[in-house]
């Protein structure tokens, strides 16, 4: 694509950039690792990790973190994709709809947690409504630790609520960029809405999907306010535990161990997304 001189250029630009990268990117990460692996005597230790692994909540946190990921991410992608495809049709009023739909974007984690709590709690709105509709005769305990599936379900709903909008905005922008020709060709050649989505839209949307998945996964790993608000530590999650160790137990080292664990997972999954959704060189026409 470029002549030889030009293709040497990136390396020239990289030299100073690399310095910045080392300083600004690697150092704080190193720092996080240090915290996680450094004992009180300054030496290397796995004690923090042992402490983390043997913590009562650890296995649950691991389990629920991934369970949430597995439930929320696909659900959101599907929901968001459906909405994006709908709005992409540019029907009359689509922008108002878009705005309404994007509002949850604007709500902070914390506020979302509070709001959902007041809906799902024993004397909350949902129970009041269900009761006044005569569907239940006494409050249903959505958030009882004895009914984990219900708690889990409410968390999935509440977490999806907020971040689906962001996924949708990303996918919508991705859709807008795809030349209409391809959709039209798919239509003409007899693709049903589903097949068109599977065989044309999704593959062409890969860069946006990749973005959405990465962002969504990071979100899922790193926000815990909603979970904390709705389930307390009955449903522990990794980042919540990190926070807990840091703020309540005043142990930044174990917190760092959790953070490092989350980091490793995130990087792993991100790389997986990059790999899976990469446009191959052949496809891009690079030789």
């Amino acid at each position, binding site marked *: 694509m470029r002549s030889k001189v030009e293709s040497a250029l990136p390396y020239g630009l990289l030299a100073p950039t690399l310095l910045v990268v080392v300083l600004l990117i690697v150092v704080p990460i190193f720092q996080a690792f240090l915290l996680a692996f450094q004992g009180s005597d300054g030496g290397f230790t796995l004690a923090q990790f042992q402490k983390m692994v043997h913590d009562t909540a650890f296995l649950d946190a691991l389990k629920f973190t991934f369970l949430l990921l597995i439930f929320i991410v696909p659900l959101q992608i599907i929901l968001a994709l459906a909405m994006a495809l709908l709005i992409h049709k540019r029907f009359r009023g689509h922008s108002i709809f878009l705005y309404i739909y994007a509002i949850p974007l604007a709500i902070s984690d914390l506020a979302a947690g509070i709001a959902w709590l007041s809906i799902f709690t024993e004397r909350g709105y949902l129970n009041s409504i269900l009761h006044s509709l005569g569907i239940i005769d006494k409050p249903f305990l959505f958030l009882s630790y004895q009914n984990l599936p219900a708690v889990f379900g409410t968390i999935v709903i509440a977490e999806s609520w907020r971040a689906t909008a962001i996924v949708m905005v990303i996918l919508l922008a991705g859709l807008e960029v795809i030349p209409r020709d391809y959709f*039209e060709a798919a239509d*003409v050649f007899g693709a049903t809405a589903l097949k068109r989505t599977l*065989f044309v839209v999704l593959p062409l949307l890969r860069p946006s999907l990749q973005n959405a998945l990465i962002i969504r996964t990071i979100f899922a790993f790193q926000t815990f306010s909603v979970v904390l608000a709705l389930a307390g530590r009955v449903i522990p999650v990794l980042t919540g535990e990190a926070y807990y160790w840091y703020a309540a137990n005043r142990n930044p080292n174990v917190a760092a161990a959790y953070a490092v664990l989350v980091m490793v997972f995130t990087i792993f999954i991100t790389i997986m997304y990059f790999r899976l959704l990469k446009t191959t060189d*052949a496809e891009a026409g690079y030789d």
Partner: protein
Amino acid sequence: MAGIKFDSVRRVFGKTVASNDVSLEIKDGEFMVLLGPSGCGKTTLLRCLAGLERVDGGRIYIGDRDVTDLAPRDRKLAMVFQSYAVFPHLTVFDNIAFGLKMQGRPKDEIKRRVQEGAELLQLQDYLARYPAQLSGGQRQRVAVARGIVMQAQVLLMDEPLSNLDALLRLQMRAELKRLHAEIKATTIYVTHDQVEALSLGDRIAVMKSGRIVQCDVPMNIYDDPASVFVGGFIGTPPMNFLKGVVSAEGAPQVVVGESRIAPTPAQTPALAARRGQPILLGIRPENLAFASSAQRNTLRGHVVVVEPLGSHKLLTMQVSGETIKVSVPPDQSVASGNDVWLHFDADKIRWMDAGSGDTIH
């Protein structure tokens, strides 16, 4: 049965009327060529038929079905897009197979038909490549292959061969002809290549500014253009037009510059009705020949440019203050600057109204 009927189809983009109440019937199995200047609405018409463009008025029928409100996929047609619209994320094979896969055809049938299509378009060597790895012409051929392997009842092709070399185009033209004879799909074919239009089309519809101005068999379009526009549009180079005046008295003759031109008996009554009025004389470059002297139906011309074009020489000449093109055999000796006599047969002349440009019959 897959005849096509456009009934006053209208499509307006802002202030541009891209399809101005177009009515056109295409018989089942007919090969209809759409011809017209750039931006006249050919693509729009195809897109309306395919369901890709909303129709602002009128109805469209395929066979007996009113398809105006059907989704594209329910219209069961195949299309070759002007912009190719070849899927960048699929290999050539998968691109060609796309429509068949959508129909859920069995694997081996798909494979066979894709192979056939690829062979026809000389794409066998590229089946595993992605569109980004192809040249422009190769990409266009993928688009064509994707369309024809469908063997749909209705096939729309929007300038499908525009980026192919002459030789390949010649071969493709023959293949398309053969294919059409075989499958008998009702075909609408947009082209700018007049040879293609004339040689492929059962009929040709000539469009201008969103309207169909003439629709007829190729020879008639060529020989009997309905207007100055059609005559001037068809033919490379197109028909020449010279201003004249119908003689006010005597047998109706037309005075062009210093020459007087007598119509054929069939043309006489029409001209007689226009005595003293201005009129246009249309004559095709190949219907003019050098004459050794002033005879009946000759014009004096001055050769300005000589272009040797292989199979003939194309002369640009000045005749009675107007510029015309004349086509002469390649071995005709002539040089720019020559003054020559040009002769033509009266029955090759077409007379047009000087105002409206319509042909006078």
